[in-house]
């Protein structure tokens, strides 16, 4: 009897330390951030809780452009990664044979270099007088004032590059799981190649695309490293606003409100999305 009880409590003991850490440093901070957003004051005189919800209206009207720009950049980058990753994932899953894991390892190589350094490396590659553009300009193939850096294109391209593996891997996992017998069956039933692709492969791989969408869209939309390193003054994203408002301007209530809005928009989106597709599936696909 005693042993059974201890057994029933075992999972709680196992979960407790990690769960507490997450509760204290992830759940509580979210609540604190909400409370900070409803304070008024400044760093010198201190902040007081005033429950002034006006800060949310302020945040939205002041940074509407950056909110919308972030969503658009995130969406373009995500859709681009789907288009770029799908054919490659397809080829690896169905045609790479025993080299599958080698190709996947190739896809993961960028992860062995710091995110910041990868982005800085692109800045270096795309610099106005750098090894790519500089040489093309010297050869007279590009006008002297041509530039890529500080444009929306550079930021979106950076986002696409940096989050590409997050899209490829879940799509690959979904394709890899497809039972080859289904494809044989479709073949036996006289489906042509196009039919096999659009009516068997594509629908069965959609969970992977959904998981990839989540894994790419959320970090791409809230990113500020690409916009800072590759972008200019006209490509500021909402992440940049949060960073400068917190760390440079020290306007904690406004910064908290902006972060809270971003989190609410994305998390509500995620949960609706996960509900529609099944939480477990998305979670499992996302972390494989």
């Amino acid at each position, binding site marked *: 009897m005693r042993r059974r009880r201890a057994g029933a409590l075992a999972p709680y003991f196992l979960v407790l330390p990690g769960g507490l850490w997450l509760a204290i*440093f992830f759940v509580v901070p979210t609540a*604190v951030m909400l409370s900070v957003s409803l304070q008024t004051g400044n760093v010198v005189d201190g902040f007081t809780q005033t429950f002034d919800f006006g800060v949310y209206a302020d945040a939205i009207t002041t940074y509407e452009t950056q909110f919308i720009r972030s969503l658009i950049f995130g969406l373009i980058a995500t859709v681009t990664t789907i288009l770029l990753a799908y054919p490659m994932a397809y080829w690896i899953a169905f045609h790479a044979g025993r080299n599958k894991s080698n190709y996947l390892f190739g896809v993961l190589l960028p992860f062995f270099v710091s995110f910041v*350094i990868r982005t800085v490396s692109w800045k*270096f590659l795309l610099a106005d007088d750098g090894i790519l553009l500089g040489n093309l300009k010297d050869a007279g193939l590009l006008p002297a004032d041509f530039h890529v850096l500080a444009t929306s294109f550079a930021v979106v391209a950076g986002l696409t590059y940096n989050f590409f593996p997050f899209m490829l891997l879940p799509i690959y996992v979904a394709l890899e799981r497809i039972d080859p017998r289904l494809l044989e069956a479709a073949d036996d039933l006289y489906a042509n190649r196009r039919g096999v692709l659009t009516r068997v492969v594509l629908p069965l791989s959609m969970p992977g695309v959904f998981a990839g969408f989540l894994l790419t869209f959320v970090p791409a939309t809230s990113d500020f490293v690409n916009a800072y390193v590759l972008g200019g003054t006209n490509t500021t994203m909402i992440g940049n606003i949060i960073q400068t408002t917190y760390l440079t301007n020290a306007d904690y209530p406004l*910064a908290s409100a902006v972060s809270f809005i971003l989190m609410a928009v994305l998390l509500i989106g995620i949960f609706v999305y996960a509900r529609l597709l099944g939480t477990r599936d998305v979670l499992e696909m996302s*972390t494989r």
Partner: protein
Amino acid sequence: MTSLDSAPPRLAPARPGGGRGGRLGERLLHAYTWLILLWLVLPIIVMIVFGFNDRVGKRNNTWNGFTLRWWGELFAIPDLTTALVNSLTIALLSTAVATTLGTLMGLALGRHTFRGRGGVELLMFANIAAPEVVLGASLLSLFITMGVPRGYLTILIAHIMFNISYVAVVVRARLAGFDSSVEEAARDLGAGPFTTFRLVTLPLILPGVLSGALLAFAMSIDEYVITTFNAGSTLTFPLWVFGATRVGVPPQVNVMATIIFVVGVLLALGNALLLRRRQI
């Protein structure tokens, strides 16, 4: 790759696009795959190569000839060296703690059904799905409210926080094919719970724990966004590099990143070999 072209069609697994006309499509996709791989490694190659560049002046933009100077003067910038040491020690410490806590959580989720399990999964899901900038900002608002000065310790706390869930998920995934009868056997033979864990459970889940630890280490040493909010004046390697982007990144950064890259790739390959050997 060579085995692909010569494999007889009957023996190859059924694949869409096999057969007439599929050949050309397959070749094109193969070439496309290599093109994308090239795109993925291009900035890494540039990073490695320009660590050997004999640069003139402050800009590292054009190739001026081969030199090993930066490898020799690797630690010539004291702040950068300190930042690198911070990154390494934070990665080690946060990996140790997060792997311990995450493994326990993974064990609970992979082996037990209990009330509140769904809540724990939701918590982990939210933790993984939440945007980094929000994780960093909210943790900062906690530290500000509590009057905790930001520095090494707060970075460590943050890194453990974002690593726990990843380790738990990896460990849980490894438990999928776990046969719990071996544990029962150990218990029937008189082993206590701790002995059973040490001699039976741990060796079985070790590959998963190791994968989780590697992932945690890689994420910690790479992390910029959450760290920048909670670092105060303490700098880590990515933070130092980020700060240097506007004035020009010194070649020492290329060399350090190259070393981290090579060591990381070797560790991952070693882990993969270990996993492969265990599976046979």
